């Protein structure tokens, strides 16, 4: 596809792939960079140096062994529950939207929102940590009142792409939604 470079809000490069299966169905995949070996090394050595300092003070070898276990379990939890490699958005006109995220460990989490529940897809602004960012979100229709919004589902919550990427996704989504 195009050569445009996308980054997330922290300036890290991300890639946006999209496959147009038909005029009613498009899939977007936002991929964040993999966990770098450098990050793992820094985190590990940080824990181990701390553990070694405690060991010097206490002379208790249990500290060292627990540091090893903490590092291993921490890494496992991180790739299984925190680190998301790909986030995808599958928009199928007149049917619904499927959101899925695949974790670094291979675990996948998928959810599907029916088209009848979706009011609109919009780009909104929010305060996130110490920044103000744009994000894409699905507005869910309130079952009681058709004109009201019952809740908001943010899209790409982990990769947080910047505005130029969001606009691209937004336009295609609107094209598909407006057709049905």
């Amino acid at each position, binding site marked *: 596809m*195009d050569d445009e470079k996308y980054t997330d809000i922290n300036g890290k490069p991300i890639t946006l792939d999209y496959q147009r299966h038909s005029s009613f169905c498009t899939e977007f995949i936002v991929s964040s960079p993999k966990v770098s070996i450098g990050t793992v090394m820094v985190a590990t050595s940080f824990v181990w140096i701390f553990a070694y300092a405690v060991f010097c003070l206490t002379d208790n070898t249990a500290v060292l062994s627990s540091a090893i276990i903490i590092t291993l379990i921490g890494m496992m939890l991180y790739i299984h529950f925190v680190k998301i490699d790909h986030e995808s958005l599958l928009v199928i006109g007149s049917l619904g939207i499927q959101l899925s995220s695949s974790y670094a460990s291979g675990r996948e989490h998928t959810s599907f929102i029916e088209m009848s529940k979706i009011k609109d897809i919009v780009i909104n*602004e929010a*305060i996130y940590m*110490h*920044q*103000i960012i744009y994000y894409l979100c699905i507005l869910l229709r309130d079952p009681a009142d058709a004109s009201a919004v019952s809740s908001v589902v943010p899209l790409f919550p982990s990769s947080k792409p910047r505005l*130029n990427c969001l606009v691209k996704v937004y336009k295609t989504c*609107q094209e598909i939604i407006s057709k049905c």
Partner: protein
Amino acid sequence: MAPWRRKADGTGERASEADTIVPTPTQKHSICMVSDFFYPNMGGVESHIYQLSQCLMEKGHKVVIATHAYGRRKGVRYLTGGLKVYYLPLQVMYNQSTATSCFHSLPLLRCVFVREAVTVVHAHSSFSAMAHDALFHAKTMGLNTVFTDHSLFGFADMSSVLTNKLLTVSLCDTTHIVCVSYTSKENTVLRAALDPRIVSVIPNAVDPTDFTPDPARAPRGRITVVVISRLVYRKGIDLLGGIIPELCLRHPDLDFLIGGEGPKRIVLEEVREKYQLHDRVRLLGALEHREVRDVLVQGHIFLNTSLTEAFCMAIVEGASCGLQVVSTRVGGIPEVLPDDLILLCDPTVRSLSDGLEAVIGRLRRGAVASPAAVHARVRSLYTWRDVAERTEKVYDRVCVEEVLPLAGRLLRLRDHCGGVAGSIFAFVAVLNFLFLLLLRWLVPDQGMDRALDASGPQALWGPPQRDPPAEEAGEGSQPQRDPWSDGAPTAEGPLV
């Protein structure tokens, strides 16, 4: 321009707005109003900011407002005409004012200034810690600053001495200061040891269409005195407590109608209890802004007993509703209305009673101007369009001025604020600058998305008078669909 600033520009950090950084007097500004006080909080400063912003937007400027979060109201909201309000989650300390630490608000305020491509930062109210913080950060970031002072202070007591010192520090390198009356200007110049040439006077205004007279609503055969103010010491409620029994005794057909809430309500309730005046003194409690007019038109005389006041909006509102105004001669009040529309008294029970007596006598003789005539005169005196025009001139003047570089700022602080305080704040300024460098390294300016303009020259919502959107875009405030359509101009150029 500051050397470090030039370097920042050279690296293309703000390249997309390079043309807006060195503005010419005729060009449109991008203004960020900062104050702790904004709607849903009610008061004079709040309505001043709102009305001024609306009129500036009408003139084609881009205006955004930054304030702190009120309860669940946080994030970004849009008001009438695409007025964008940032409710930033900063901790509220006391009386709706945020904690001032000089640092913690920098990341968010910087984000607002950068993404909105702000050229002038306009802070309001000396009670607002966030306003002072914003001035401090804006100067560190090399933006031009304007400050509007809405209140008068004393010089004698301990708290005033401290506040004045802080104000001196905050204003000594602010580009321009606006006061609401000449008395307020004199007060501010003295308090903050300023050069009077950089202080302008721009009065407040009222919306004359909101405050129209309605003589049919005022009861016939009786005379009603209306008082609308917060029931606090500053507003002279103790004086009011002295006047009420005296006049009620002398005039059996005199009623009092008192709107507002506050700690001094107990004084009025005691008076009412002691002299059995329940049927003649009505306490309405807190009023919403839109109810004020309905209360005003029920009366014949508007009484203001303030002990200190920079510019009294209430008496203008009263006169605009066609009431006879009796007020104390304090602060900037004598400047506000022409002599034939107001009766000024000394802030004593005796003098105020005499003043009220005189007006009551005139009312009985029918020797007063009709409410419609009074309204017609007031209507042309203070309008928000006029205020906006004068503020625009201040912006034109400010934006061609140079912002002091860091070294200059430090020297200025040391010279103006005394050895100890000056040195301390110079140190804080250096820390703030280092913190800014750290933030620029963590999140570079070009890493932030430029916001799409809802007002100003590149407004996507159109001028406010042509296409006003809904009063407020609720919880899920959403940009309309048009901004993203093909070819829409954005801060980063046309979208692909």
